């Protein structure tokens, strides 16, 4: 008989995902419109899929360099230079990862010693906290609120810095809030980073999805290139989530350390996905712009719809999420999401999934077809009318 649990304390200490149960409810229902997705509703543009098929036909089925296919890294170096004016050496400052998810894990494992603290925002993407814990670090949350439309403020970061603070891990444009940091705010954050000698892990996977504002790559800020681990990927901009492909750019020292972990845990990213990604970088730009234009239209429709039904919603400037307040219903976000699903068959994600500061909000993804968004808004308006307390 077994007397000890098989599972490590480190893993046991990670709380189970709160949204698991919504899967089970949805599985038993028909006619659900889901605003709970976290990926584009476009299929990968055909020319990119075709390049993947061609790679298979040509027999690209072996391992690649641990760093990734050199041709892809060279294309990435050009891509980053074109968009941000930054120079990275494709030979030693770029690493192709299995999605940005792996990039976050590698970055944390490369830089953290046990007990090191990493500052993250609240609410934030769900994996950050768990990845910090798995890498032996401690996460320290900086609250954000609707007062600044969920943009983290430099002074709030500074208040939480201790001698153990090693890095700041941020993801803007933000999942779940859609917030985008403006240049002035970023400069103030960079100043704090500089003064306290921190590293920055910047997850910019939604960087191409901004509306009417410019996205600033953190590494372009004065003095920040040497301190930043810039993470990005193909999932959101090129609608390539299932290909699992991302990349990291940083100093040679950091990239080499990340590569060390990567080579022993992953070997390399999928070869045919890398071949398809070369095509995405070379000719995918018009498709990116077309998708961004469509998201922008849907974003306006959704935000207006929420505000009209009394679910106050600030204008998200990036990603493909709206983050309306559900305060007017008097429910918790968890309760709201469950009742909305059961009563009106619309799936949203409770804000509390992303941290305490997400309580009172729900995340709604507008990477959904316009007719579905319109129908979902009608159902939600009916729900809000029924449950409005003030």
């Amino acid at each position, binding site marked *: 008989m077994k007397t000890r649990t098989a599972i490590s304390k480190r893993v046991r200490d990670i709380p189970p995902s709160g*949204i698991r149960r919504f899967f089970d409810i*949805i599985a038993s229902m028909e006619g*659900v419109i889901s605003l709970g997705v*976290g990926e584009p509703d476009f299929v990968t543009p055909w020319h990119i899929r075709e390049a993947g098929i061609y790679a298979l036909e040509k027999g690209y089925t072996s391992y690649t360099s641990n760093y990734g296919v050199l041709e892809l890294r060279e294309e990435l170096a050009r891509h980053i230079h074109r968009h941000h004016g930054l120079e990275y050496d494709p030979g030693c400052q770029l690493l192709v990862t299995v999605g940005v998810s792996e990039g976050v894990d590698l970055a944390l494992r490369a830089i953290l010693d046990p007990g090191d603290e990493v500052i993250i925002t609240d609410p934030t993407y769900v994996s950050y906290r768990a990845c910090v814990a798995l890498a032996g670090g401690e996460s320290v949350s900086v609250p954000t609120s609707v007062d600044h439309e969920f943009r983290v403020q430099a002074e709030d970061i500074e208040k939480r810095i201790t001698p153990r603070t090693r890095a700041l891990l941020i993801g803007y444009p933000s*999942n779940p809030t859609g917030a985008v940091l403006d240049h002035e705010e970023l400069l103030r954050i960079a100043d704090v980073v500089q003064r306290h000698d921190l590293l920055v892990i910047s997850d910019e996977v939604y960087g191409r999805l901004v509306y009417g504002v410019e996205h600033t790559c953190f590494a372009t800020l004065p003095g920040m290139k040497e301190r930043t681990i810039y993470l990005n990927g193909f999932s959101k901009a090129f*609608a390539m989530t299932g290909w699992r492909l991302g990349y990291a750019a940083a100093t040679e020292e950091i990239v080499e350390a990340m590569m060390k972990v990567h080579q022993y845990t992953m070997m390399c990213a999928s070869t045919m996905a890398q071949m398809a990604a070369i095509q995405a970088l070379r000719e995918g730009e018009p498709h990116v712009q077309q998708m961004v234009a469509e998201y922008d239209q849907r974003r*306006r*429709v959704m935000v*207006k719809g929420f505000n009209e039904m009394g679910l106050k919603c600030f204008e998200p400037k990036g990603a493909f999420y709206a983050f309306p307040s559900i305060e007017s219903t008097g429910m918790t976000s968890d309760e709201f999401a469950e009742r909305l699903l059961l009563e009106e068959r619309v*799936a949203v994600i409770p804000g509390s999934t992303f941290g305490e500061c997400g309580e009172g909000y729900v995340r709604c993804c507008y990477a959904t077809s316009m007719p579905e968004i319109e129908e979902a808004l009608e159902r939600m308006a009916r729900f809000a009318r029924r449950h409005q307390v003030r």
Partner: protein
Amino acid sequence: MNDVFRILEQDARKTPEQIATMTGIPVSRVEEAIKKAERDRTILKYKTMLNWDKLGEKQVWALVEVRVVPQRDVGFDAIAERIYRFPEARTVYLVSGAYDLCVLVAGKTMHEVAAFISEKLAPLEGVQGTVTHFLLKTYKEDGEVIDGEEGPRRVPIMP
């Protein structure tokens, strides 16, 4: 302002209010732009794209290559006009290459289409010859895949 027309081109039933929300352009300006476009024939027409097969009504289409003799002063325009005035000629293009006019002809039966080509189109003065290709199957038309395109297969809940 071209965004207004791009939206209408995709879905002619979008109201000016909806278009205003989608683009952030004030509704009065959207209405004005549409009215102006209707007047100056920038917007030619609003119509519906149908899959007639599903309605049980067969249509026969032929793509006809037409070689013509261009005429002094008017070039190809006069003969093109004589062709496009026939309602059976649904689309008429002047093209480069081995022939001059590309004419899409529609009818209820193959016989009807063939009769139009041999009795009306081919005998026209200036027409040197025609090559007729009957369409066998439409896969995609004007950007729309006829059988519908597969959407992404997404997990409904994902943080």
